[in-house]
């Protein structure tokens, strides 16, 4: 904005017939105290502009006759209601290779370290007229709101969307022996139930997130679209071939309830994405490895690609928060311990989940094969633990902390 004078010629436009449409934008370019010269050939407009200035608290400094019957009016812009912030006038977003990514936008209009809840839904970079209501957002600082690669992750998510209706070769699924069919139905029932929590939990934080950090909300929207698709595709797979949906266990319900009731965004990202979805990556790899057909393998492979992105976002979020706030380590550890205490007595992996994963790996009910399936399941538990420890170490926890936190993780995987 400028304090220098701006001059406009409103010709013979009446005050309410076009003059204001030139005067208001010109005043918007000025700082309070700046002077606007208006040239007009409308005699009444001078007086009307005077009243309008009084209402809007600008100051009509003088009106002098100019050459050719025109009047030159000088207005001093008032400070009442002037939008705050700098005018965005040197920003010209350029496509590269014909594209404009969200990451380009973020680079052009970077995040501030913190945001004012009084700016509401004003897009980042907008000048904000004062006096708007204070919004109920509680995630107002960069450290807890947005990791540095959030825009890239959003771009990736948008281009990686797929369709659970047309991208899956449903017609190629062949009938399976009944016990295997049932086991498959149970596995996908369990997956879908967990996916439901992954759909609901992020939704609770979007409304708390300051719109300044919209890229995080945009990423969470893609995550929710992913989870919606996973629920869709998993329940379809459970029912194609007649396996049907199976049992929902109380342990699963308790475990997911403890995610839904979290009130802190970073704790939720840690428990849901780093620990829960992280563990699910190993589960999905296991199902893919033991899938009875290529279509089923394709389904879980696609879901795992999406989950990898969710885990990546969760890791970025948590590491970003930890790097700015060292008390986070203790808080996250406390969150794991508290959840573990809530789930005390829940027992091990819910039996229907254990058994269906065993039968799936066995490929049927032949006792020799089931023995192998059982070993595969036990091995899965090991792999899940090892990979959780790796992720915790990567996040900056000590080896001892990583061991403890992984051991305290829910028997429900998520």
């Amino acid at each position, binding site marked *: 904005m400028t304090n220098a004078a701006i001059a406009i010629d409103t010709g013979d436009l009446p005050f309410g*017939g*076009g003059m204001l449409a030139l005067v208001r934008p010109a005043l918007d370019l000025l700082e309070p105290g700046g002077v606007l010269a208006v040239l007009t050939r409308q005699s009444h407009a001078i007086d009307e502009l005077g*009243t309008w200035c009084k209402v809007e608290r600008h100051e009509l400094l003088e009106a002098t006759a100019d050459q050719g019957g025109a009047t030159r009016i000088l207005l001093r812009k008032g400070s009442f209601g002037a939008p705050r912030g700098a005018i965005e006038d040197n920003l010209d977003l350029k496509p590269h290779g014909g594209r404009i990514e969200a990451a380009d936008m973020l680079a052009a209009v970077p995040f501030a370290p913190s945001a004012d809840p009084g700016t509401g839904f004003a897009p980042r970079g907008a000048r904000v007229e004062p006096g708007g209501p204070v919004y109920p957002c509680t995630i107002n600082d960069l450290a807890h709101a947005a990791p540095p690669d959030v825009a890239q992750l959003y771009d990736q998510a948008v281009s990686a969307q797929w369709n659970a209706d047309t991208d899956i070769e449903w017609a190629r699924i062949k009938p399976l022996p009944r016990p295997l069919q049932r086991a498959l139905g149970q596995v996908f029932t369990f997956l879908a139930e967990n996916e439901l929590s992954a759909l609901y939990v992020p939704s609770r934080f979007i409304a708390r997130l300051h719109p300044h950090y919209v890229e995080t909300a945009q990423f969470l929207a893609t995550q929710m679209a992913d989870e919606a698709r996973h629920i869709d595709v998993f329940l379809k797979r459970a029912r194609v071939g007649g396996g049907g949906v199976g049992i929902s266990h109380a342990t699963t319900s308790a475990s997911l309830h403890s995610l839904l009731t979290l009130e802190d965004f970073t704790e939720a990202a840690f428990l849901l994405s780093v620990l829960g979805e992280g563990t699910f990556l190993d589960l999905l790899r296991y199902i893919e490895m033991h899938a009875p057909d290529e279509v089923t393998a394709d389904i879980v492979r696609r879901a795992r690609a999406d989950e990898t992105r969710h885990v990546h976002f969760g890791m970025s979020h948590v590491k970003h928060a930890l790097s700015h706030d060292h008390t986070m380590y203790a808080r996250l550890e406390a969150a794991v311990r508290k959840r573990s205490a809530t789930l005390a007595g829940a027992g091990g992996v819910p039996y229907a989940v254990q058994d269906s994963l065993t039968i799936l790996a066995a490929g049927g009910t032949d006792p020799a094969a089931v023995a192998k399936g059982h070993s595969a399941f036990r091995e899965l538990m090991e792999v899940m633990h090892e990979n959780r420890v790796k992720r915790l170490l990567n996040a900056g926890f000590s080896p001892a902390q990583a061991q403890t936190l992984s051991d305290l993780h829910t028997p429900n995987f998520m």
Partner: protein
Amino acid sequence: MADETILLGAVAYDAKVVPIWEGIREHFRGQHVPMDFCLFSNYERQVESLLAGHIDIAWNTPLAHVRVKRRTQGKSLSLGMRDSDRDFKARIVVRKDAGIKSLPDLHGKTLAVGSRDSTQARILPLHFLRAQGVDLSSVKLLPFDTDVGKHGDTGTSELDVLKALHEGRAQAGAVGDLIWVLEQAAGRVDTGKLQVLWTTPGFDHCMFDALPGANAAKLEAFKRGLFAMKWENPAHRRILELEGLKEWLPPREEGYASLTAALDEQGGW
């Protein structure tokens, strides 16, 4: 012990009057000034209630203000006004196709005017036109006596005047400056059809009035609370916007001289 609570009267000319005074009462509570309000349906009863001592302060239109002044032999106390109450004007707006180029051209034409108790759209425009030499007996008045008792606060009669002008039911009309400019700023005036013929001299609008014998501590507390309202404060701004001001200002009396003269001349007391 006397009640310390300031009781203020206001006229409920619009549903927004309730949130305005609830908001102001809330603000006063924050300033530790106990205040409550009661709403009247018309200014006549509010004036009588003030004079009878039933309320401490009345938020009065100019017409109610000068009546209180007269009834107290000029001794009533003026406490404050809105910034927007000062230097009010009225406009004589004409249709461009009516061939009215000067005030004498109004003779033989139809002039739409607002309610009989509207200072800005009836009482003062007619007073000032007469002072300019317009013979009102040869002008056909098209009056819009809507919301009588509200002293023009609702602005309804002024919008009626503008509507009549747009529709050609009148060739000329009297409206307050504020309505005229705000309707234009909102893009609701066809400037291809209407234009200003003449603008009246300035006059002042609403005022907080109290009786000469009022409790001085209450009045001081009221002024302190009132002037502590700031546009920059979002909670205050919401109320100030609703009430149509940006700043409360101290009182002044000279802006009501023309209205007093008009009432004398029109027998409007």
